[in-house]
């Protein structure tokens, strides 16, 4: 890739990431949410991967990191659902809003989202989905780039073997 792209893409990716996070944070009252914001962050990471390549990318996305973030996202979602089940009897009940007035005020305050909308657990669910989508989409591209490199390496080694046989 050209030098201009290599200089421009990393700072641009950082700004795109910020906009992705903002999309996640506004998901409870504006168009967007976890999936869309996560896809925007993934787009920024993929942008870097395409321009710099898998080895030279300034974002080091190891297998451990990707699996950990994906697991944390899934766990947050499931635990919020189980918390609703435990305190109200309904899976994924919005404990922070409590429209049926069936949970104690302490629990309601605990799961409240501190902003003017008081959307309860919805922003936290968006956050969890955003984490999962971000690493999920990035992992697909990393896997494809890894397969491509592996294919090229295996083709090169086959060529070398054929030359040695001849």
């Amino acid at each position: 890739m050209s030098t201009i792209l290599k200089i421009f893409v990393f700072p641009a990716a950082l700004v795109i990431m910020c906009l992705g996070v903002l999309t996640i944070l506004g998901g409870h009252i504006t168009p967007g949410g976890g999936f869309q914001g996560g896809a925007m962050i993934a787009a920024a990471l993929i942008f870097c991967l395409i321009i710099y390549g898998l080895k030279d990318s300034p974002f080091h996305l190891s297998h451990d990191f990707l699996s950990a973030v994906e697991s944390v996202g899934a766990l947050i979602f499931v635990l919020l659902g189980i918390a609703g089940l435990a305190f109200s009897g309904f899976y994924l009940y919005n404990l922070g809003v409590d429209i049926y007035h069936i949970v104690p005020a302490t629990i309601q305050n605990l799961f409240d989202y501190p902003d003017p909308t008081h959307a309860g657990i919805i922003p936290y669910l968006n956050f969890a989905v955003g984490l999962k989508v971000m690493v999920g989409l990035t992992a697909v591209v990393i896997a494809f780039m890894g397969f491509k490199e592996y294919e090229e390496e295996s083709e090169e080694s086959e060529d070398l073997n054929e030359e040695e046989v001849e």
Partner: protein
Amino acid sequence: MIVYLGPTALGLLLGFVLGTRIKDVPESGLKFGASVYILFLIVAVIVSYAQGPFPYYTGTPFASGLIATAVGIILGKLVFGRGNTPQKMEE
């Protein structure tokens, strides 16, 4: 001016996680120094001011979540992203 805790905390957390992944790769021949992050912060402030108090907040004239994310990315880079360890290729 009221800065709400929810978007600020979540933005900072997500930005921090992303910032920890940034590491210099000496083999690539490119080095993103402090100037890149200062420029990024200035651009983030301009973008957040242009965005307004997203989403439908009225406490500040700028998007506090975006500023928090930018600060989180820089903090994550400063705390965990200083090493130059090469990326491990999965077998």
